[in-house]
């Protein structure tokens, strides 16, 4: 899976990035986590509340810091 964290560098975005990494460590397998701070790209996803979580190009959550369990649920739902 290709996981992207959308955010312009606020504290919440960094927290979500950490959460995503931990969630991946728990479910295992090879997945990439990238932090996207390019505004144009964030706009292209249509996200207005950062942080946003994008999995394989689909916006899964915006505007909140998810818990590890919530993130795992989103990732495994695919």
């Amino acid at each position, binding site marked *: 899976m290709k996981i992207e964290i959308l*955010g*312009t*560098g*606020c*504290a*919440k*975005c960094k927290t979500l990035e950490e959460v995503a990494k931990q969630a991946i460590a728990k479910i295992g397998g090879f997945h990439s986590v990238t932090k996207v701070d390019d*505004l144009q790209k*964030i*706009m292209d996803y*249509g*996200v*207005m*509340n*950062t942080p946003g979580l994008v999995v394989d190009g689909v916006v899964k959550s*915006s*505007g909140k810091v998810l818990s590890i369990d919530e993130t795992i649920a989103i990732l495994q739902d695919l």
Partner: protein
Amino acid sequence: MWKESVDYLTYELLGLTGHLGEAINFFIYDTIKIWFLLVTIIFVVSYLRTHFNTEYVRAHLQGKSQLYGNVLASLFGIVTPFCSCSAIPLFLGFIQARIPLGVTFSFLISSPMNNEIAIALLFGLFGWKVTAIYIGFGLLVSILGGYFIGRMNMEKYILMDVKQMEGELEEVQISLTQKERLKEAYDYTVDIFKKIYIYVLIGVGIGAVIHGYIPADFIASYAGADNPFAVIIAVIMGIPMYSNAAGVMPLVEVLTSKGMLLGTALSFMMAVTALSLPEAMILKRILHVKLIAMFFAIVGVGIIAIGYMFNFIL
């Protein structure tokens, strides 16, 4: 009832008297009262909020006429959350949906000003009347402020080239179960409370000292009716205090009870919430300084006018 319990605890059980007793009584009474109200009101607001989100607001504001859009955007500002770190994507997202600049600003003024923490504190400290006045005039400032910014044709001061999207946005329906909504509201409340309880404690603590030790006419002589610049000074002082709204408001309550005029207090609180320096710094990445200065000037003048008007009427 709560007042009596605290009175009993401080004066009877602990046997405190004089200034110290008064200060400690006030501290316990106010801290617990404000914490209780904060938790209750934040929970209610964040529950209501699970029915709206920014995407929903954006779809609704699209294609509305100027003034009507300003009114609607300001009203939406009350129920939507605002975090200054989201200010840029939000701003660009609105422009992208061809929402006029003035309407976008109405939202940007109203959302932080009418935030749940400010409303909860006002309600707890000053009662529903002052809260209603604050929200009412807050809406007025955001509607008119946005309207004037819209009339000035300042679109050229947006420094980023935003691709406008074609067609109409679909209204996003949020489908959550009742349980999920309650859980989200609970999580959010805990999150906010953890962040601000300490500021409330510090604010009330300083307030308690003033309450117990400083004579009533001391503040009146500096920030009371005799000082014609009180409102302006209050607004300028309020701008850098955004992150500490939770600590500042309990202080304002005490200052008011010691003779600061209510209009001055209202202006101060509006300046604390609506004009924030960190937000301005963030917006500088996408907006020309001229536009930000105009935004601050219009909102500042509006807030100052409200303060003087109140001091004059009341």
